[in-house]
């Protein structure tokens, strides 16, 4: 089988001078070992090939996708794309394809992840489960590696390789659950026993939970909960298309957050997950979205950038046409406090391990409803006391980081799971002055 870059170039060559063309090809293998009731119940793998071709024939645009890599199949895909485009009206917002740009060939992959076997994943699961065999464990361990190639008819081309490994799971008693999570480029850095111990400890401490009366409370949020906030801000707020359409809260140049908050989109560095360029072949670079409380910029693909009169920041993705450009390498700048120090600053509040089922009520106000899950505890006089049953909140995520409400940031920056999955956000723990809990176990 051809490599991703070779396939992309071959497709563009097949289009020839009949249209502007860009091809994005992703080849890889993803395998996931899933466990519940402390045994492996689903264990799956996939060899994938994703080919996306976008053509513009005199401004009439169409995109086609396929998963067959033979010359005949790719030729058929090309002809379908050209035929569909030919029937279309001219797209007045077509931004054209990316001009040649310098993108060094990048390889963020890890050999241990590429070569991880089903037996090795099962061993990490066994270690997670074995952290406390008196509890009931559930979760997954997965590995994914990929080779991405891009080419377009200006002669621009790029290659990137990468990998990701994750273990994520819970331990459960009859009445409580606790979670643990780790993600890395490198499977050999995944420690199922350590993550299982964190989950088991939270589960054990979660027993005998009481129903807390809903209301405004101080909170200390673990990295998973902070990551969910960051992702919602990115998805709905720093999205250049949402801003163009008047649906974003973001106001570049204005102080919208506490001065302790800085937020970046950073696809670079040794811990980077993902490719070094986007779906349109634009290089991805470090972008500072919030600088010490001040919103500094939005992210764009070529289409939203054209509308805004600026240039793409490299945030085109497979669902750009539906959702707009999204930052997918978010980093919330950490502080210097330990988690215990954050907790010690709370007289009466709630510690939240993670959020669950968050949904936005209005993107402009960023009012979100969701629940706590897998570890909710009362904080009294600077220490965690009793477990609390899961709480519902209805809270503006953007206002939760407003000036004066961020009272502390942890030093524990790491990849954190979030509402949309692993590997999208690195975040630390965070102490907030107020959080609006609107319901509990009893409604």
């Amino acid at each position: 089988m051809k490599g991703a870059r070779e396939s992309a170039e071959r497709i563009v060559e097949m289009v020839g001078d009949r249209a502007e063309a860009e091809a994005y090809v992703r080849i890889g293998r993803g395998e996931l070992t899933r466990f519940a009731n402390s045994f492996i119940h689903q264990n799956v793998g996939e060899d994938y090939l994703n080919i996306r071709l976008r053509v513009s024939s005199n401004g009439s645009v169409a995109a086609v996708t396929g998963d067959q890599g033979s010359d005949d199949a790719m030729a058929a895909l090309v002809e379908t794309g050209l035929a569909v485009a030919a029937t279309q009206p001219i797209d007045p917002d077509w931004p054209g394809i990316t001009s040649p740009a310098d993108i060094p060939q990048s390889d963020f992959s890890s050999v241990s992840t590429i070569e991880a076997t089903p037996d090795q994943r099962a061993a990490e699961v066994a270690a997670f489960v074995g952290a406390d065999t008196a509890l009931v464990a559930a979760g997954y361990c997965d590995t994914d590696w990929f080779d991405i190639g891009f080419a377009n008819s200006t002669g621009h081309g790029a290659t990137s390789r990468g990998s990701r490994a994750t273990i994520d799971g819970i331990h459960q008693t009859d009445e409580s659950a606790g979670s643990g999570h780790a993600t890395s480029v490198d499977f050999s850095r995944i420690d199922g026993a350590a993550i299982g111990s964190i989950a088991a400890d939270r589960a054990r401490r979660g027993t005998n939970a009481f129903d807390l009366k809903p209301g405004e409370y101080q909170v200390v949020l673990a990295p998973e909960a902070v990551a969910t906030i960051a992702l919602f801000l990115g998805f709905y707020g720093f999205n250049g298309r949402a801003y163009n359409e008047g649906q974003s809260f973001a106001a570049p140049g204005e102080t919208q957050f506490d001065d302790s908050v800085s937020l970046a989109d950073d696809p670079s560095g040794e811990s980077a997950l993902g490719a070094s360029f986007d779906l349109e072949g634009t290089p991805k670079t470090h972008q500072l979205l919030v600088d010490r409380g001040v919103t500094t910029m939005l992210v764009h693909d070529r289409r939203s950038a054209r509308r805004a009169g600026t240039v793409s920041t490299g945030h085109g993705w497979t669902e750009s046409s539906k959702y707009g450009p999204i930052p997918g390498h978010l980093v919330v700048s950490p502080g210097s406090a330990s988690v215990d120090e954050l907790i010690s600053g709370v007289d009466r509040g709630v510690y939240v391990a993670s959020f669950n089922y968050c949904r936005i009520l209005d993107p402009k106000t960023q009012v979100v409803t969701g629940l706590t899950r897998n570890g909710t505890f009362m904080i009294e006089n600077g220490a965690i006391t009793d477990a609390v049953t899961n709480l519902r909140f209805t809270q503006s995520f953007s206002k939760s980081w407003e000036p004066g409400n961020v009272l502390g940031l942890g030093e524990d920056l790491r990849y954190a799971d979030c509402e949309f999955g692993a590997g999208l956000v690195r975040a630390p723990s965070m102490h907030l002055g107020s959080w609006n809990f609107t319901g509990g176990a009893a409604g």
Partner: protein
Amino acid sequence: MFENAVAAVEAALGAGAVYADARYIEGKSESIEVFNGSVRQLDRTESAGIGVRALVGSSWGFFGTHDTSSTGLLAAGRRASEIAKASAAVPGQPFELADVPVVEADYETPHDESLFEVPLSEKVDLLVAVTGALRDVEEVRLATATVAGWDTHKWFVSSQGHRIHQHLVETGGGFSATAIGDDETQIRSYPQSFGQYETGGFETVRRWDFLSNAPRIADEAASLLTASQCPVGEMTVILEASQLALQIHESVGHAIELDRILGWEAAFAGTSHLKLEELGKHRYGSSLMNISADATLPGALGTFGYDDEGTPAQNVPIVNEGIWVGVLSGRDSAARAGLPPGGMARGDGYPRMPMVRMTNVGLAPGESSLDEMIAETERGVLMSTNRSWSIDDKRLNFQFGCEIGWEIEDGKLTRRVKNPTYTGITPQFWGQLDMLAGEAEWVHWGTPNCGKGQPIQVAHTGHSASPGRFARVRVGVTG
């Protein structure tokens, strides 16, 4: 194409599986979105591949691949068995797959007009006209209209002898108008949020008559900018049928999935408040509540001939006069629970392992009507079209937001209200169902975006519903 699936199954058996099955799938899809008069998205997808499932001892392995060469098929079968063997390092209790009829069969979705045979220009012209009509209202700044469809051929083979070919056709679409104020956005959608999808061809889109409904939807979106906020407090709520369909999906459909009840989804989607020992005894709701999971409903989105384990589509009672009586199951979950298999295991394309999914989980119609419910309500809110949805991991504590509401006073609709929300606890809420509209207002709503599983799988499900009235509901939760 049966031979491709047979080759993969035999490879899995040769590598040590005691049972294996395979789905060879060829599919195509099309999605067109017009935004403010211009085509923003026109995507066509063509795919082919195989997914092989192998059982070794009591452990499953699954492997999917796009590589349909003979080498690729054999490698996929062997890999599925290798993965299953690795699962045995952390094994579960032994089990036998529940018995199902071994059949050779062919099934095709009844349809009149393939989406792919309707000229692109006709589809685009319709959507451009719809967004134009929406934009005739000044406050509407964002007008979006969509049609989409899937055309899928599946060849299923099992080591027990199944040979089933299915041709499934699903089509739909919708539109939305968004009005933007200084510090808010207000949206109205038709026929429901995310559109309406059904099994069938482009005739489904024609039947919903997008163009005639566009002016009303645009006017409603604009009016919400100046509408009053939803009242706050405990009062009667009437849910329009598509919102009630989502309520069914979230607070009944997921809760009755047997894999959740057994704990198999505990870490991600969650479990269920239902306990198997309460089956046949637990009161789920009022006596007006009659729910079934019917994969045979003509036109509904969750309709097929056979599930992805070769089990025939069937109509399974779930709630009878408020009492919980049934679950959604597959061959392994049913066997472990000692229940008959319901034919509800489906996978999201060839690369995903089949798991328990909703079919058409619907609420049978009552004998009232929306007009009668309004007339018999002293104080309440009528809410329509979902805008947000959130529910906890046991499917108990929910909070839903709708696009639009109307206050009801003394049996009459009064003013429009914006940002309507309601919240509750599943069995209490369903216990407060006190009026339900009849068959004339009963619609097979489709949900094309039901997410579940790891890796995530998206399923297409159906939910028949008519408008319903609920007493003493907490309304107007805000941030």
